[in-house]
């Protein structure tokens, strides 16, 4: 009986441990998810205000005095509340539309960042006199917050109110295009060689070990490589999309090779044998059978590799993409910046009006990355074949 009670107590204790263990496993996953929720909520909370931008309704006078000093175009008390991004363009506006000369137009104009910060109830450096003016405008309905479309069609700017992500987005597209152009064919070819053709000798093994090691090398070291090889030796222009794309391509290469190899090796051998049995040459076996069958896997791997490269910043800092580039690049050797680098530049600015824009930029980047990853998962689920 004594033995029996002891056994029962042991069982009880064991079940307690079992529950503890289960609970801690669930707890771990809850921590991870709640971090994600907290993180996303925090970024959204910081960034959502940047979706709106303050505008002021004012009269703009076009005359000779205006052209001399554009601050005179608007009522005196407003001249320091409006964005210089608009005022400095007046001479060009007049040049394009000479009939404006001598007229006065009433229109909504982007306010400067301090006013914007005030309207969003955030810290600002306005003086009490200026606040009184804004309050008066508010009472008259001459100040409002509208959708900040400029964020999407402007490039970077030193004036937070007109700073946008267009140039960074275009730069990202260029860089990603180049990364894809170099890394996908070379990666797939390497994988095909290693998986389908390579004999098992020291050469192949060296390559394999090498690829595994490349996958583990810190990204910043790829930046040093890009700087030393592409820029200093091959003379690729600094901060160009080409320099960034090449550097990221080398970084992405191992990812693509490894995923492609997995995809290739999952094609069963009897397909290869079947094709060889009807007289296909080794290359034809690969080209006609193995590659088409492993295409979804290759595609998924490439997308994941590119999504990774898209969020990468450190190597790009070293090859000079941390630059002030307000205009979208028009060629691959033009200076370009990418979204993560833009986010970094803005986050390092002490002007607080950039904080919300940084967060909004992050939201844009995250949505793109999430979509890419979702696409990869969809391709995987839709075409995945169990052999």
């Amino acid at each position: 009986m004594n033995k029996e009670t002891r056994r029962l107590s042991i069982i009880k204790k064991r079940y307690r441990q079992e529950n503890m263990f289960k609970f801690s496993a669930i707890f771990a996953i809850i921590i991870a998810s709640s971090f994600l929720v907290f993180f996303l909520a925090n970024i959204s909370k910081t960034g959502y205000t940047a979706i709106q931008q303050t505008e002021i309704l004012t009269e703009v006078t076009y005359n000779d005095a205006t052209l001399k000093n554009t601050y005179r175009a608007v009522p005196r008390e407003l001249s320091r509340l409006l964005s210089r991004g608009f005022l400095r363009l007046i001479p060009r506006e007049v040049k394009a539309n000479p009939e404006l000369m001598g007229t006065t137009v009433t229109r909504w104009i982007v306010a400067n960042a301090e006013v914007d910060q005030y309207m969003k109830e955030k810290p600002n450096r306005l003086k009490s006199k200026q606040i009184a003016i804004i309050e008066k405008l508010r009472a008259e309905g001459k100040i409002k917050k509208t959708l900040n479309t400029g964020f999407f069609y402007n490039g970077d700017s030193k004036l937070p109110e007109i700073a946008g992500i267009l140039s960074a987005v275009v730069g990202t597209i260029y860089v990603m295009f180049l990364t894809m152009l170099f890394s996908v064919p070379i990666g797939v070819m390497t994988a095909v060689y290693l998986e389908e053709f390579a004999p098992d000798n020291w050469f192949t093994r060296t390559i394999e070990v090498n690829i595994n090691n490349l996958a583990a090398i810190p990204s910043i070291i790829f930046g040093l490589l890009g700087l030393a090889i592409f820029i200093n030796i091959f003379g690729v222009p600094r901060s160009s999309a080409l320099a960034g794309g090449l550097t990221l391509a080398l970084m992405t290469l191992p990812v693509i090779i490894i995923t492609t190899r997995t995809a290739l090796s999952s094609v069963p051998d009897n397909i290869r044998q079947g094709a060889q049995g009807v007289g296909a040459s080794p290359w034809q076996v690969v080209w006609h059978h193995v590659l088409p069958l492993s295409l979804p896997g290759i595609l998924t791997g490439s997308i994941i590799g590119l999504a990774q490269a898209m969020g990468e910043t450190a190597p790009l800092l070293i090859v000079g993409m941390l630059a002030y580039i307000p205009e979208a690049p028009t060629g691959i050797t033009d200076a370009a910046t990418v979204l993560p680098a833009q986010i970094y530049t803005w986050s390092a600015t002490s002007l607080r009006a950039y904080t919300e824009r940084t967060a909004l930029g992050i939201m844009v980047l995250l949505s793109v990355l999430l979509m890419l990853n979702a696409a990869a998962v969809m391709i995987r689920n839709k075409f995945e074949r169990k052999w």
Partner: protein
Amino acid sequence: MKKFLTLALAIAVMAIGTLTAQAREQIRIVGSSTVYPFASYVAEEFGATTGKPTPVIESTGSGGGHKLFAAGTDLNTPDITNSSRRMKTKEFDKNMAIGNKKIVEIVIGYDGIAIAFNKANPDLNLTRKDLLLAVAAEVPVNGKLVANPYKRWNEINPALPAKPILVYGPPTSSGTRDAFEELVMEKASKKLAGYGKKKYSKIRQDGIYVPAGENDNLIVQKLAKDKNALGIFGYSFLEENSDRIKGAMVDGVKPIPANISSGKYPVSRSLFFYVKVDHLKKVPGLAEYVDMFLSEQMIGTNGLLKDIGLIPLPDADRTAVRTRWTKRQPLTKADLEHK
């Protein structure tokens, strides 16, 4: 068949031909992170108001900028390098050797180095000697140099508050650190017998001087919160955060533009940029960009750059710089050697 061949050849040749017509359209600028905000501001104005391509400005640091600048004469090298210090003779020699014979040196203004702290504190008046003794690795005690024992300001100077010393300053890689060491520490140590009237510029590493980036949001937060901490920063930093922090007086002089500009405020340095004269013809807009930078609207006493923290040069100096520019007067080694 022959026709087809000629056609294909023609296409090939044409495609190759287009590349020679490609010339660079954008102005390329590299260099100091201190000059970067001013240069990019001008660049943006330049792009917006003239409709020409906006110059590309990369913040590489002064040293990196001079390296890229002196890398060659061709259009793959930058047209302008910004610098928070003067070009070194070594760098000048490199330029001469590589073929950049004509370089114009342009001073755009001053950067005051402010000793900033939380706005809630009463005003503070520090001497350079106070600052030296606060941050030096070794201080003279009874005629001998010993590891810096000071933990509170009043231990250095009874007139100062009895608060712990905590200074956030630039890291060794920064030009601001260079200026601080030269203008504060070396100047003060030369007058002190304890240092043997020699220049001394070694900064303590026991956690009282904390190296920190210049544009770091975390440091503003720290100063905004910690009433004891001081920060050594460029004046523009103080200007941008003037709602939260203010600057200490150094040797009784306030860090305000008028004092810095007139040279009364002792801790300030000049900001430069260097232009390759040979590129003026090849890169469209380069001359206009420099013209705009030197205009009264930008670097004048009430210029736009003053709003973001540049201290304008005195009138006479501005005129001198403009003359040098309009004459495209090249920099000589003698200019650099003479201080």
